[in-house]
């Protein structure tokens, strides 16, 4: 069992900070409801993946050290993203392979770091949420969360507790949507082929809403769905779980509620 009222540092992630703060507030609400005290350290920017995956190890290390420092005083560090959480959890220690002292610090951070939804279920033992969403939804498993952190059943479990929500499984939910951070702008043609086959499967489910746990993937799929004229709404899973779906869906203007696809 977790200790009562653990102190959680929210790792907002750069995309949520810049593009969709409402996901951050949904994360805060969910964790507070689970009994956590949530704080948001100011000294955070990004987890460093753009540099890390571009081969820029020096900048990645500097950013990692900054994050390690900023999140020293928390019982847990939680990110509403499998990809950023996996960066802190699985990759930071690798950055300091040859420096045992720093590696130990990175490992210590790693042991306290979690992806939001799995944190709620696995650490805070949350088995259901207070929320309603009268929609047919489908769910995409973002790659890092799925394969590096084993996040698969947790979101499904919590979604099943949302009133009036029906989940239809997405065939190939485990196949990459083609986002891949800088990949999608470095290899736009390939990324487009990948996201096109993803959005085709999404449309075939007949769901009116697509959910996932990573904003990068969500923006990619939302952008493609909208470019091809689909009215499927796209949201971060935390918004639905926190019952905070009154903000417009991703890429939708205020007051411009898309006609529902189901």
């Amino acid at each position, binding site marked *: 069992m977790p200790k009562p009222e653990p102190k959680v540092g929210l790792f907002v992630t750069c995309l949520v900070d810049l593009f*969709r703060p409402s996901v951050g507030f949904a994360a805060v609400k969910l964790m507070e409801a689970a009994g956590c005290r949530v704080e948001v350290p100011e000294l955070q920017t990004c987890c460093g993946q753009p540099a890390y995956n571009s*081969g820029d190890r020096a900048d990645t290390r500097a950013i990692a050290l900054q994050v390690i420092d900023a999140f020293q005083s928390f019982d847990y560090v939680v990110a509403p993203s499998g990809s950023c959480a996996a960066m802190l959890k699985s990759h930071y220690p690798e950055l300091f392979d040859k420096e045992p002292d720093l590696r130990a610090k990175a490992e210590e951070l790693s042991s306290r770091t979690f992806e939001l939804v799995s944190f709620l279920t696995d650490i805070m033992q949350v088995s259901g949420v207070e929320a309603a969403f009268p929609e047919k939804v489908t769910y995409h498993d973002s790659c890092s969360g799925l394969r590096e952190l084993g996040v698969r059943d947790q979101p499904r479990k919590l979604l099943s507790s949302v009133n009036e929500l029906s989940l239809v499984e997405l065939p190939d939910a485990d196949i990459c949507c*083609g986002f891949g951070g800088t990949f999608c702008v470095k290899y736009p043609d390939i990324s487009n082929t990948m996201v096109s086959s993803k959005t085709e499967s999404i449309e075939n489910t007949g769901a009116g809403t697509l959910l996932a746990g990573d904003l990068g993937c969500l923006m990619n799929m939302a952008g493609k769905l909208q470019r091809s004229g689909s009215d499927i709404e796209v949201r971060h899973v935390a918004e639905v779980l926190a019952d905070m779906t009154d903000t417009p869906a991703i890429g939708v203007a*205020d007051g411009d509620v898309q006609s529902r696809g189901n």
Partner: protein
Amino acid sequence: MQSRSHRFKENAREAIADPHIQAAMAKMKVGFTGKRLAAAARLPEFEALRDAARDIKNHSLANLDFYLERYEEKVTECGGQVHWAPTAEDARKAILDICQRVGAKTVTKGKSMISEEIALNEHLENAGIAAVETDLGEYIIQLRKEPPSHIIAPAVHVSKEQVEADFRAQHQHLPADRSLSEPTDLVNEARQILRQRYLDADVGITGANFLIAETGTSIIVTNEGNGDLTQSLPKVHIVIASIEKVVPNLEDASTILRVLARSATGQEFSAYTTLSTGPRRAEDPDGPEEYHVILLDNGRSSMLGSEFQEMLRCIRCGACMNHCPVYHAVGGHSYGWVYPGPMGAVLTPNLIGVEEAGHLPNASTFCGRCESVCPVRIPLPKMMRHWREREFEKHLTPTSFRSGLGIWAFLARRPALYRRLTGLGIRALGALGRRRGRFRSLPLAGGWTKYRDLPAPQGKTFQQLWAEKQKNGGSSK
């Protein structure tokens, strides 16, 4: 083989526009994956066997010199000969020398990626020796004058209809009204053509899936049995193998065999697993008079002790490309050289240089599906990242990208400045996009907006909103 890896982007664009390739990929991406999954599920110890396979390969690589020498000793003891080939050139020369010494006119070949790597067919043909591929897939691409697009299914990009057309064009001596609509018709016709070639051949060349140090044996696995005829009918058998194929003993090979076919095609075992040890002995009813092994290095020994050593565990099962969404999008030829997919993205820069093949390790989303199915648990994404690090160090990363990354990293390392600038930028962007909720195009975001809309930001950053909330007393409990 002449590399076209440097034009990976163009290759990919052409492949994406090619309906034949797209149709073939749509088919293969469900076929292989489903079969592997079912095969793995039927074997409770599958995951444990993957660990065992990894450990065997690690042990073999850690003691590679020992096992290779032991292997050579054994081959020699059995009457065979080992030829060490540091480079592709050395391997080609050794093979041609043998062929010319025995006056070979026709050479039959079992499937071998090493043969592709050293561009053997071309070399033999230039010397006036006919090289005949006997694996059906290899035979098809030889007719089409194409390189393989997959390491275990070389003609996976070719449709049945295309094969029929090729056969009709090439086998003109057969009746024009014959039926070739079923796959079995095609297989039978290829067999019929190849039968005579087996008998004509002076030399048979095969690859090797394993070299056994303890016994001097080489092992191949096939589904057509073509390798057996290739190596037992001609008077000379040449095995071409790269150095990392050696394992200590037959027990080790059988452990790895248990994960090989399951990972590759979802079969429990390939239809034929063929062991050959030396030339024909006096008491043997058949077999070659001469037995040669060409051991190719071609850059592999320099991977030992480097961050790429683990790549040498690869047993060429093809699972990584079978599961790779990038491979599914662009097909194998886009990679531009012998080895496609994730394993090619790591191996190719090692063999032909990262200057030529730099795109390959970059064209990955790091989705990790390859690593999750690799039977010897090679951390493929991690090694692709190592290549990116080497490229970054050598300043091979494109300048525009590098300076963009530089500015971003400068800010990311200065949280206060970052907050101020992103706060301003996001407010402007949010205001611009407020009406539609998204952008159809945006300066500097062309790579994104060419194919998809860009969702507009909500207007303020989380950090701004959070600070406002704290100030207004709405703090967390």
